[in-house]
C-alpha cells in the first residue's frame, strides 16, 4: 500500500539541544497513527516538524512521496497540504463556524465551499450550527469544528496535537472514538499526539511509543501491552510489576511466584537472571485456589477492584478482580497465575536501558 507519510532518520535540535534523534516511521493511506509518550518526550516536536513549523537538522520527510523536508529543502507549512487540529483548537473567534470551516478553501467556488462545509457539519453532527460563533459552542463542539476545518481542504494527512487534553477526563475516550469514526468515514490518514494511552488505544490503528526523542516501539495497542519491546514500554503502558526471575529451561522462567512458561528471548540461556513483567490480568482471583496472598491496597474502579497483593515470599503484585469480590485490607485471598504472554527482559539490558 502507498505510504502517505514517510519520516526517515530525522534529527531535530533546539539550539544545541537535540530533541529528536534518528527517528523514522511511515504511515499508509487511511491509517491512524499515534505518537504516545510522556510529556517532554518530543512527540509534539515530531508533529510540528511534519507540519513544517520546525526544521529537521538531518533526515527527510515525504508527504505523498514528495520530499517536503530534507537538508536542502523545507517546504513551508502552507504548501504541505496538511491539516492540523490544535490543542486549544485555535478557532478564529471573529469568524462563524462556517467561515472557520471555509477558511482553508481558497480557490473553491462559493457553491463548492457551501456544500463542503455542509457536508462536514453534517458529519460532525452539527448541521444547525453553521452561523454560530466559537464562543457559543461547548468544548466538544469546538473540537469537532476544529476537526472539520482541518479536514475541509482534504489534506494528504491530518495532524492532531493533543486534541483531547482540554476536555473532561470522562469525555476523552468517547470523543476519541467519535473522531476515529469521522476519520474512518472519510478514509483520512492521520497522526495523533497524546500522552494518554486510553486515547491512543481508542483512536489509533498503530502506535509509536516515544521516550527522550526516540521511538521505543511501533506496534498495535495489543502488542504494546502484551509484548512490550523494552522495559520503558512495559512501564509506560498499562499497570504491572516487575519480578526478578531465572531462566531454568528452554521456555520456563522460575520466579518467586513459581515456574512460568512462555517464550524466552533468544539471548537468555538457562541460568540467566531476568526480569518478568506481571500484569494485573496475569493474577486471577479464585476463592478455591490453594495459593493465597494478602490484600495490601485496594482501588475501587467501578466494574472492578485493582488489588495490590503481598505474596508469601514478600513481593507485591497487582490483580484485577471483578467488583463484587469485595475484600478488606489484610485479608488473605486465593489467587491463581494465568499467563498468556510471558514478558521477559534480560537483567543486564533492562538496567542499561534505564537512565
Amino acid at each position, binding site marked *: 500500500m502507498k505510504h502517505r507519510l514517510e519520516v526517515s532518520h530525522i534529527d531535530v535540535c533546539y539550539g544545541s539541544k537535540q530533541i529528536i534523534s534518528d527517528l523514522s516511521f511511515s504511515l499508509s493511506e487511511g491509517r491512524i497513527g499515534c505518537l504516545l509518550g510522556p510529556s517532554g518526550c518530543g512527540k509534539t516536536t515530531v508533529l510540528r516538524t511534519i*507540519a*513544517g*513549523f520546525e526544521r529537521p537538522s538531518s533526515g527527510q520527510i515525504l508527504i505523498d512521496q514528495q520530499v517536503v523536508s530534507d537538508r536542502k529543502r523545507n517546504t*513551508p*507549512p*502552507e*504548501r*504541505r497540504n*496538511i*491539516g*492540523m487540529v*490544535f*490543542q*486549544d483548537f*485555535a478557532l*478564529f*473567534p*471573529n469568524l462563524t463556524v462556517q467561515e472557520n470551516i471555509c*477558511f*482553508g478553501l*481558497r480557490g473553491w467556488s462559493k457553491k463548492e465551499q457551501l456544500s463542503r462545509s455542509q457536508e462536514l457539519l453534517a458529519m460532525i453532527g452539527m448541521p444547525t450550527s453553521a452561523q454560530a460563533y466559537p464562543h457559543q459552542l461547548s468544548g466538544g463542539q469546538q473540537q469537532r469544528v476544529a476537526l472539520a*476545518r*482541518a479536514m475541509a*481542504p482534504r489534506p494528504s494527512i491530518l*495532524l492532531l496535537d493533543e486534541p483531547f487534553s482540554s476536555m473532561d477526563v470522562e469525555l476523552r475516550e468517547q470523543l476519541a472514538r467519535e473522531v476515529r469514526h469521522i476519520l474512518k468515514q472519510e478514509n483520512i490518514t492521520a497522526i495523533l499526539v497524546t500522552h494518554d494511552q486510553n486515547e491512543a488505544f481508542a483512536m489509533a490503528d498503530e502506535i509509536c511509543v516515544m521516550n527522550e526523542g526516540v521511538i521505543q516501539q511501533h506496534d498495535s495497542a495489543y502488542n504494546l501491552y502484551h509484548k512490550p519491546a523494552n522495559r520503558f514500554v512495559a512501564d509506560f503502558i498499562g499497570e504491572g510489576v516487575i519480578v526478578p526471575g531465572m531462566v531454568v529451561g528452554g521456555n520456563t522462567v522460575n520466579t518467586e511466584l513459581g515456574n512460568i512458561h512462555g517464550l524466552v528471548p533468544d539471548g537468555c540461556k538457562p541460568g540467566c537472571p531476568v526480569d518478568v513483567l506481571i500484569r494485573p490480568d496475569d493474577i486471577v482471583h479464585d476463592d478455591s485456589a490453594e495459593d493465597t496472598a494478602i490484600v495490601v491496597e485496594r482501588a475501587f474502579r467501578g466494574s472492578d477492584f485493582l488489588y495490590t497483593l503481598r505474596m508469601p515470599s514478600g513481593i507485591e503484585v497487582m490483580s484485577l478482580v471483578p467488583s463484587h469480590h469485595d475484600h478488606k485490607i489484610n485479608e488473605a485471598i486465593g489467587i491463581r497465575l494465568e499467563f498468556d504472554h510471558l514478558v521477559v527482559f534480560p537483567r543486564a539490558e533492562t538496567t542499561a536501558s534505564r537512565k
Partner: protein
Amino acid sequence: MARLWQPGIVLVALLLSIPALTIAGFVFEPSGENWQHLKQTVLPDYLENSALLALGVAIGTLGIGVSTAWLTAMCRFPGKRYFVWLLLLPLAMPAYIIAYTYTGMFDFAGPVQSAIREWTGWRYGDYYFPEIRSLGGAITMLSLVLYPYVYLLARAAFLEQSICVLEVSRTLGCNAWSSFYRVALPLARPAIVAGLSLALMETLADYGTVSYFGLGVFTTGIFRTWFGMGDSVAAAKMSAMLLMFVFTLVIIERLSRRQAKYHHTTNKYTRLPEYPLHGMRAVLAFVVCLLPVAAGFLLPAGQLLAWALQTWEEMVDASFIKLTLHTVFLGLGTALLSVMLALFLAYGRRVLKSRTVFVSIRVAAIGYAIPGTVIAVGVIIPFAWLDNTLDGWMREHFDYSTGLLLSGTLFALVFAYLVRFLAVSLQTVESGLDKIKPSMDDAARSLGYRPRETLKKVHMPLMKGSLLTALLIVFVDVMKELPATLILRPFNFNTLAVRAFELASDERLADSSTAALMIVLVGLLPVIYLSRSIAQSRAGST
C-alpha cells in the same frame, strides 16, 4: 521579504535613536564660552528648580495617587463606582492648559480675587493670596494632571494583591490601617515607583507650564539658549544633562516593573472585601476623591467652557478652521505611520523571535522618555547638518543649491513625533498581538496561508480594537504635544496646541479657550476608553 525584515527593524531602531544619540554625543563636545557662562550663572538655578519641581510633583502625585487608589480599590463609600473613572479625567488636561486656566481664575484680576475684594473691600496689598505663577503653582498644576499615572498603577497593584495576604495580616493582629502600611503598601511599592517615574518624566519634559510661569528649568533653559543666545552646542549640552536625569528615571521604572512581577502574590483572585466606610469617614473619603477630580478637571474645564462660550464666535474663523485641519491631518498622519511602524516591529518580533529584533525594538521605543524639547534639538542638529552638507556638495559639483530639504519641514516634525510616540502605539499593538495565541498563526499556516496573508486575514481583524486604540492615543498625544511642535513646525504652520499656548502667552486667556477646550475634549476619548477597559478587566471581580 522575510530576509529584509530583521535588517529593516534594526534600521528603524537606528533611525529613531538618531536624536538621542546626537544629544548624547554632545556630552563630550568641548564646551564653548557660552557654556562656561551658563554654568556660572543660570545652570545652578535650572538644576535647583528642576529638582524642587520634581520633588514637589513626586510628593503631590504620591499623596493624591496612592490615597485615591487605596480608597477606590479597598473601601466602599458613596460615589466610589464613579470615582474609579472620574479620577482619570485629569489625564485629558494638558499641563500648560490647566496652568493658564488657573492663572486666569486666581491671579489679581481674576474672578476669585476680584470677588474677595468686592466682599471685603480690601485693595491691592491688603491681603495675602498665593501667587499662582510660582514654583509652588507649577508643582500644584503638574501634580493635579499627573497623579493619574500613580493612581492607575497603584490601584492595579492593590487589586492584584491576594486578599489572602491581607487577611493573614489581619489574623496576625494588624488592623485595617496597619495592614495597609505593613503589607499592601510595600507589596504595591514597585508599581507605585513605576507610576511615579512616569509622572516625573512628564514633569521634566514639561515646557508649557514652566515657561508660562516664567520658571527657569532645563526645558525653558534649552529654549532660551537655543533661540535667545543662538548657541546650539550649549543647548545640546544642556539637553544631554536633562537626558541623563530622564534615563535614570527610565532605569528606575524598568527595574520597578521587573520587581513588580516578584511581588505578585497569587494567581487566585477573590473579590476584594471592600471595607465599608460610614459617617465622617465616608465623607472624608468622598472629599479626598472629589478634590483632585474637581481641581484637576471639572473646575478648569468649566472655566474653559465659560470662556469659550464668550469668545468662540469671534475665534472660530477661517484661520482657526485651517489650524484645526492642520492638527487633524498631522495627528492622523503621524498616528497612521506610527501604528504601521509598530505593527512592522511587533509582528517582526512575533515571527522572527530573534534577540537582535527584541533589543532593536526596545531601542526604538526609548523616545517616550525623552522630553519633546530634547528630541526637537536632537532632530534639528543632524537634519541641518545633512541639509548643509548636501547643499554644499550639490553646489560644488553641480552648481545647484538644494536649500533646506528636511529642516523646517513637516517631515522633521512628524519624525520627531514618531520618535516620541512610537512607544505608545508599540505597547498597544504588542499587547493586542500577545492576546492572539500562537496556535492561531499555526492554524492559518496549516490551512494554506503565508505569513503576510496570516497577518491580513487573522491578526488584523482580531487586532482591530488594539490598532484603533493605538491610532487614537497617538493622535491625541500628537495633538497635545507642545515643545517639539513649537520648535520644529514649518514657518507659519500652526496647530491647536501652539495657538492655544501663543494666545495664552499673550495674556489672551479667554481667546485661547476654544482651542484649549477642543484639545481637552478630544483628549477625553482615550481616557474614556481607558476607564472602560479598566472596568472590564478588574482582576478582583472574577
